[in-house]
């Protein structure tokens, strides 16, 4: 911490042309990235909002007075009140409990999908580039085939078949999102493959799989992290879209998407059913977008947004 303050203090002198004094030892990358990220105001706002949303999802169940499946027949389609903070729907479900549960569900799906898709994309993309030859032809051919396939329809049918099981939805969403990132990683890894340290480790007898996992993937880590946050946004939106169209999770299971769908039907008579889940969804995606933007700037040494560190 003291390190940061000294630099900030001397940073005040940058106005008259003197650059802040460099610390004696080069700081670790993690430290550098954290500092660049923390200097970015909107990214910090995003992080705080995202933190609050996660905290809301985790602690909500302790505050709620009703379960998300519990029906209160004395309060049907009632607006927000002291008893039902976010109001109720026409069946008497407490919307606060539903939003908390739906948010949990959406977050779980989004994190699983984004993590799964990123790992799969990194493995396939980097392997295709490293091994080359027929392996590369087959993998890249498969990626291109998937890109030309109307995957959304396939996903909709598959998740409909599963009866709205969120685990199946996660799997099909991974299947639907990984290949775009895989192609990006493949093109990036192509230049990585030609770098000398990759050849050097091959010369030293390191097996190919280890080279992909331990030498290639760490070199694209920053891209993977940024894409992971973007992937979370994409997954939230896709899950919402699926649920909104009725192909997503099924009652009694709820997600933000299915809540918004119900709310959209009754937007004139009971608008709170739409506004609360929609507001949570918007906060979630916007905060994640701000975070990924901040991360990108922090990782990119040529970006002006983070300032020099």
């Amino acid at each position, binding site marked *: 911490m003291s390190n940061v303050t000294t630099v900030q203090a001397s940073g005040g002198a940058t106005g008259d042309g003197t650059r802040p004094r460099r610390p004696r030892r080069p700081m670790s990358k993690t430290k550098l990235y954290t500092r660049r990220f923390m200097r970015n105001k909107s990214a910090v706002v995003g992080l705080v909002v995202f933190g609050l949303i996660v905290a809301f999802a985790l602690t909500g169940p302790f505050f709620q007075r009703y379960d998300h499946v519990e029906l209160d027949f004395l309060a049907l389609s009632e607006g927000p009140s002291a008893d039902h903070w976010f109001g109720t729907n026409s069946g008497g479900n407490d919307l606060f409990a539903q939003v908390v549960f739906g948010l949990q569900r959406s977050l779980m799906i989004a994190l699983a999908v984004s993590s799964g898709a990123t790992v799969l994309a990194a493995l396939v993309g980097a392997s295709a580039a490293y091994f080359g030859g027929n392996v590369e032809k087959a993998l890249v051919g498969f990626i291109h085939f998937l890109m030309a396939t109307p995957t959304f329809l396939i996903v909709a049918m598959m998740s409909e078949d599963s009866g709205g099981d969120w685990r199946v939805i996660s799997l099909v969403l991974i299947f639907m999102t990984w290949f775009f990132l895989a192609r990006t990683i493949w093109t990036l890894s192509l230049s990585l493959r030609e770098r*000398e340290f990759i050849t050097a480790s091959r010369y*030293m*007898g390191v097996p190919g799989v280890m080279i992909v996992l331990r030498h290639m993937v760490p070199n694209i880590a920053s891209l993977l992290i940024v894409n992971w946050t973007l992937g979370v946004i994409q997954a939230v939106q896709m899950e919402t879209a699926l649920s909104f169209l009725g192909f997503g999770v099924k009652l009694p299971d709820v997600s933000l998407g299915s809540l918004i769908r119900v709310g959209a039907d009754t937007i004139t008579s009971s608008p709170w059913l739409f506004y609360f889940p929609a507001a949570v969804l918007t906060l979630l995606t916007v905060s994640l977008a701000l975070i990924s933007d901040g991360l990108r700037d922090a990782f990119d040494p040529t970006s002006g947004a983070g300032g020099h560190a």
Partner: protein
Amino acid sequence: MTNSSTAEPLLEVRDLQVEFRTKAGTAQAVNGLNVTLHAGETLAILGESGSGKSVTAQAIMGILDMPPGHIAGGEIRYRGEDLLQMPDERRRRLRGMNISMIFQDALSSLNPVLPVGWQIGEMFRVHRGVKRREARQKAVEMMERVGIPAAEKRAGDFPHQFSGGMRQRIMIAMAIALDPDVLIADEPTTALDVTVQAQVMRLLKQLQEEFNMGLILITHDLGVVADVADKIAVMYAGRVMEASDVYSIYSSAAHPYTRGLLASIPRVDGADERLDAIPGLPPALTDMPPGCPFSPRCAFATDRCRTERPELREIAAGHTAACHYAEDFITAEEDQHEPA
């Protein structure tokens, strides 16, 4: 070196032929190379860019890019076993463990995002199946061995946090980590300052003696060679032009190309003279002259040189040269020395 010639050679390259098949035609990168290396011996392969010296190293290591590279013939025997006939997996195990290599540019040969201790330790993990913590401990030991100060502390640092000489030391630590028999150093000091070059070469020499390794030193720097090499093979356009012990090359070079190389070393006492560079460029490997490949640039070339290719032949004990007039050059030199 004197007694080792009777023992079984560590590495023996016989009639190695490496081709590159390109659209412009087939390039003979290495053409009929013969070298032997014994334990504790240093062989220097000398030559200018494109002479096939690095390709030779790659062929020995089994890391030639194929295609376009292609080994057209010959054999590379490691302890009597032909590497070229060996299954890939077995050969991979030999790499790093028995035959190891040091690269020219340490900065680009080290992974920028991984700590150096991890990278040295990887050798132990991959080849010996050593656990993470133990591998790190061994990596620190290796770093101490190659003279990196505060090794324990610096094992967690990244390559860009080291100076050029220190990075090359780290590369050396990686290469000798598993106590290999054969170490190939491909221009190990080219990217370094002159003072650091000397330190690194001294370290290499010292480690070689300690581990009794056979060292193949690939270089174009005659100064480096004189210090450390026992034997020299001078390559030109994929062929060995002259090979002998280091003393004979410097005292009585028999090939005009070797003489040209020796003459082109800048001298401190001849500062006002122009450097004796060899005129012209090496021939294109896809379009070799029918006679001696050096004949277009040779000041002494005759019609015989331009039409008939000289074979590598023994002109004195342990001294071979590929020149029709090799003996003449040696005797001419002796005549010159006699009056003195």
